[in-house]
Structure formats: structure tokens, C-alpha cells
């Protein structure tokens, strides 16, 4: 049962994948597990689908862990999936969202990297693909998207942590999401969750030109951050990727925005640098709880403002 899973602890990929099956079993009419592809090392890429029925409903996408070492994100993803499942029928906002839309949640978006952080190198960020002609492994899956691909803010060196890869979508982990989003065709919000530095960002990262929906996205971000901060007073900054942190090309949400998914956001969760990627497990639940408040704002807004 999901009640035996300790959300306040970090877990291996096997533990999380096993737990996903129990979540499905505990909520058979609501939660299902889809395989959207396979990683470079042939691990399954699973997406949890939370749906109350209907065909090709509009949908919200959430992903965590595309940078494998950002363990707080996979932990937050698991907590969030459970929260959504438990709150359906209880929380009016979650109930309204799921009565009208589907939610897709990919908890381990980079399974090879995640397994590697448990077995060999806790600090691993990239995928685990071999790069022809280089002894360095892996591609940064948040520089591998077809949005300003290969431009400034990504490295052409396979040894760099921000290596963009040989071509856009070269990584099967990225390609699987691209294919899923494209085939679905009705995803209205896309939220990609990273850590750390406490930011809520929206496109663009590859150019300083504001997106056409800049003002609306800024206002949503402001509301989401206000909700997030209301719980523990955690301080977040928000704005476009380019203006708030740095130029970064080939990023996930730049691509999703360019695909027409207006409500495209990316989070950087706790902390601001006391522990970095080694955030203690005692902070998993507070982090997930405050993030949930922001996610709810974005999801509710998506429901209330169709396009």
C-alpha cells in the first residue's frame, strides 16, 4: 500500500517504480501508468496518468528529475502524485481540475542518470549516452530540445555539464517526451521541475525577446510564488529564464512554449545553496508541500483560462 512508502526519505529507482505500481493499485479508477519510451540504457520511461475519463482531454504535464542529481525533485514528484490522487474528491480545486483535465506526471525523467547517482556518482546530472569521439559521457537533457538548439548558453563540449548533444532530441529521454507531447496534441500546461535556487521561471531562455504572453505568465508566476511562500515563508524569485538567471538554449519549456503550450513553467526548488543537491531528507515534505501550493495555482489557472 502507498501508506508504507516513506515520502520523507530518498529512494532508489526500483523503490519508486515499485511504489508507482502500488499507487495505481490503490487508485485503480484514477491513476494509471504509461510507458512512453525507453532510456539510452533501456530503462522504462514511465508516466503516471491521473484521469477521471474521457478521450483526449486537455492535460497538464509535470516532470521531475530530468537532471538526475536533483533528488529533491523526484521526491517531490512522488509526494505530488500521491497528493493529487488523495485529494481528488476531497479538495474542490483538485477535483475540478481532474473532472475536466488529465494530469501526466513523469517522476523520473532521466532514469539512467538517476540510477547512476545511486550507484556510482551522486553528482551526476546528464543522461548516460556515449558521445562518439569523446571519453566523456552524457548530454544535458535540458539543452537538447529544438528551441534555439546549440545556441549560447549550452556547450558544444561533451565533457561539459551543459553539453547540448549532437543534435536536437538526440536523447531518447527527451525524444520520448517530444513524441508524447506532439502525439497528444492537447497539453495546455507544462511544468518542468528542477532544483536548486528557488525560482519559478517561464520562457524564453534562448533569447531575451519576451514571449508574447510575457505579462500573463509573469502574473501567474507572481501568484504561484505568493502561494508557495505563504506556507513557510520560502523566498522565490520569478521571471523569464533569460532575465532571471542566464541565457540557456535548447531548454524544455522554450520548446513547449514554441509548440503552443502557453502555460510553460520551470521550477528550481529548495534550497538557495546551504546544501545544494544534498538537501536533507527532512526537507522533502516541506518542499513538496510548498511547491504543491504553487502547482495548484498554475493548474487552477490553466483550468480557468482555456485557450
Amino acid at each position, binding site marked *: 500500500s502507498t*501508506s*508504507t512508502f*516513506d515520502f*520523507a*526519505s*530518498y*529512494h532508489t529507482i526500483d523503490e519508486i517504480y515499485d511504489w508507482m505500481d502500488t499507487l495505481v493499485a490503490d487508485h485503480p479508477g484514477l491513476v494509471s501508468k504509461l510507458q512512453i519510451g525507453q532510456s539510452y540504457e533501456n530503462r522504462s520511461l514511465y508516466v503516471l496518468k491521473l484521469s477521471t475519463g474521457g478521450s483526449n482531454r486537455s492535460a497538464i504535464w509535470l516532470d521531475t528529475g530530468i537532471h538526475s542529481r536533483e533528488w529533491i525533485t523526484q521526491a517531490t514528484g512522488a509526494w505530488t502524485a500521491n497528493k493529487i490522487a488523495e485529494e481528488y474528491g476531497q479538495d474542490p480545486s483538485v477535483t475540478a481540475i481532474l473532472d475536466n483535465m488529465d494530469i501526466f506526471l513523469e517522476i523520473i525523467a532521466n532514469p539512467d542518470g538517476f540510477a547512476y547517482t545511486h*550507484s*556510482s*556518482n*551522486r*553528482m551526476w546530472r546528464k543522461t548516460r549516452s556515449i558521445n562518439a569521439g569523446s571519453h566523456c559521457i552524457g548530454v544535458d537533457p535540458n539543452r537538447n530540445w529544438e528551441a534555439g538548439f546549440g545556441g549560447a548558453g549550452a*556547450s558544444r*563540449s561533451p*565533457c*561539459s*555539464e*551543459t553539453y547540448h548533444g549532437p543534435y536536437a532530441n538526440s536523447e531518447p529521454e527527451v525524444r520520448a517526451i517530444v513524441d508524447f507531447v506532439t502525439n497528444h496534441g492537447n497539453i495546455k500546461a507544462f511544468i518542468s521541475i528542477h532544483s*536548486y*535556487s528557488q525560482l519559478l521561471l517561464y520562457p524564453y531562455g534562448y533569447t531575451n525577446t519576451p514571449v508574447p504572453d510575457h505579462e500573463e505568465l509573469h502574473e501567474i508566476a507572481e501568484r504561484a510564488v505568493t502561494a508557495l511562500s505563504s506556507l513557510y515563508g520560502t523566498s522565490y524569485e520569478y521571471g523569464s529564464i533569460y532575465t532571471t*538567471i*542566464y541565457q540557456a538554449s535548447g531548454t524544455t519549456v522554450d520548446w513547449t512554449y514554441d509548440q503552443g503550450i502557453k502555460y510553460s513553467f520551470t521550477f528550481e526548488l529548495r534550497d538557495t*545553496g*546551504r*546544501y*545544494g*543537491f*544534498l538537501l*536533507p*531528507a527532512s526537507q522533502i515534505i516541506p518542499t513538496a508541500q510548498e511547491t504543491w501550493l504553487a502547482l495548484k495555482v498554475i493548474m487552477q489557472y490553466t483550468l480557468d483560462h482555456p485557450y
Partner: protein
Amino acid sequence: EQLFVGDQVLRIMASNEEQIALLRALGEQTELQVDFWRHPASPGHPSDLRVPFPSLQAVKTLLESNGISYSIMIQDLQKLLDEEKKAMAKSRRTER
């Protein structure tokens, strides 16, 4: 298993664009094997850099000689990793 004994994470505060460029160049020096946990963004924004123990002296010298201020965010990375591993093992042993 890769160990990180003696590796430090430095919190670096660049005060101008020139120093940002220098930090970016530092990140591209593969022989130092440094790893930006938080990339250099703009003056006044902190960046965090993991520095392997063998490269510590060279990196600190470079920062100091260019007047770039920094502090030590994590003194010994392996100690934190060991604590994390211990916490995970303990959690697994706990009967729920």
C-alpha cells in the same frame, strides 16, 4: 563508486561581467574537473562551484588573484554524502 573526499563547494560572488566571463572560462578548463552547481549568471548573483580536492589550491589562487570573492559552502562533500547514505539506510531499516 566515485568519492568526493576533500572536495569543496565554493559560493562565488562575481562583481562584474569580466569576472563572470572568467568564471565561465574556469568551468571550461577540463583538467580542473570543476562542476558548477549553480552557473555564473550576472554580477551580484552567487554561483556555486564544486572543486575536486586536487584542484582546490589552483582554483582558490585564481579567484583570489582576480579579486573574486568566495566562501566555502560545503567544507567536505563526502561527509555530507555519507550522512545522506546513512539516512537512506536507516530509513530502509525502519519498519513502517
